[in-house]
């Protein structure tokens, strides 16, 4: 535990839509309990949910590490999936590589990364083809 910060860790299971979103729901509840401003909670939860779903869909799952500081929430979603060959393209609304069965569930509209960018105050994507992706989302609380 880092001093002054609450840390949470979750596994993100692969292809498991039964549990997809549980980590972000849990973080949302925690932030509500801590009395964080509801708009900040929503920004955090939605950006994290998108990252979580991306890890489920594209990367055989991964891990989420969350740090809640007094002035910010930092979310790292790491996976060992295929990586993103062209981040600029992936950031475009409507661009998707999601398979049909995922799109049938209502995902894969090419809005995941754009939504993360929209709701995060800072978004960092560290990706390498064949190695994986780490998405770091920061939401400032003040």
């Amino acid at each position, binding site marked *: 535990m880092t001093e002054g910060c609450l840390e949470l860790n979750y596994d993100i299971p692969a292809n498991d839509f039964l549990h997809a979103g549980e980590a*972000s729901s849990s973080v949302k509840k925690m932030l509500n309990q801590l009395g964080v401003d509801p708009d900040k909670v*929503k920004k955090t939860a*939605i950006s994290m949910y998108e990252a979580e779903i991306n890890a489920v869909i594209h990367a055989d799952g991964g891990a989420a590490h969350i740090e809640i500081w007094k002035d910010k929430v930092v979310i790292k979603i790491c996976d060992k999936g295929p990586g993103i060959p062209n981040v600029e393209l992936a950031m475009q609304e409507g661009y998707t590589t999601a398979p049909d069965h995922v799109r049938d*569930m209502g995902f894969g*509209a090419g809005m995941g990364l754009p939504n993360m960018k929209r709701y995060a105050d800072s978004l960092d994507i560290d990706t390498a083809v064949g190695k994986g992706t780490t998405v770091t989302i920061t939401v400032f609380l003040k």
Partner: protein
Amino acid sequence: MKVLEFAEKFGMKVWAGENKLQNDITGVYVCDLLSWVMSHASKGDAWITVHTNLNIAAVALLTEVACVIVPENINVEPETITRAENEGIVILGTDLNSYEICCRAYECGVGK
């Protein structure tokens, strides 16, 4: 308008969330792309979707919609009902289609 009033007025089935029917409906949002819903739905909306998979409960929780309405007598999966109950999400069902639900909501003054 309360979810309870709306559901009762149009004979809607309550699939989940019996204890959250006092939520206020302040608008209506219709969309089946979940990321789009997260990006554009507002707190207090009645969200109409034909999806019945587990993720509608997660999206409803994140967007803080007043309720989910599943149109045209579509069956809701038991796993979704369980998750919605656990998360305090209201899911309603109706034989109306999405357009008809919007019209009824408008007639009731929702969003005016």
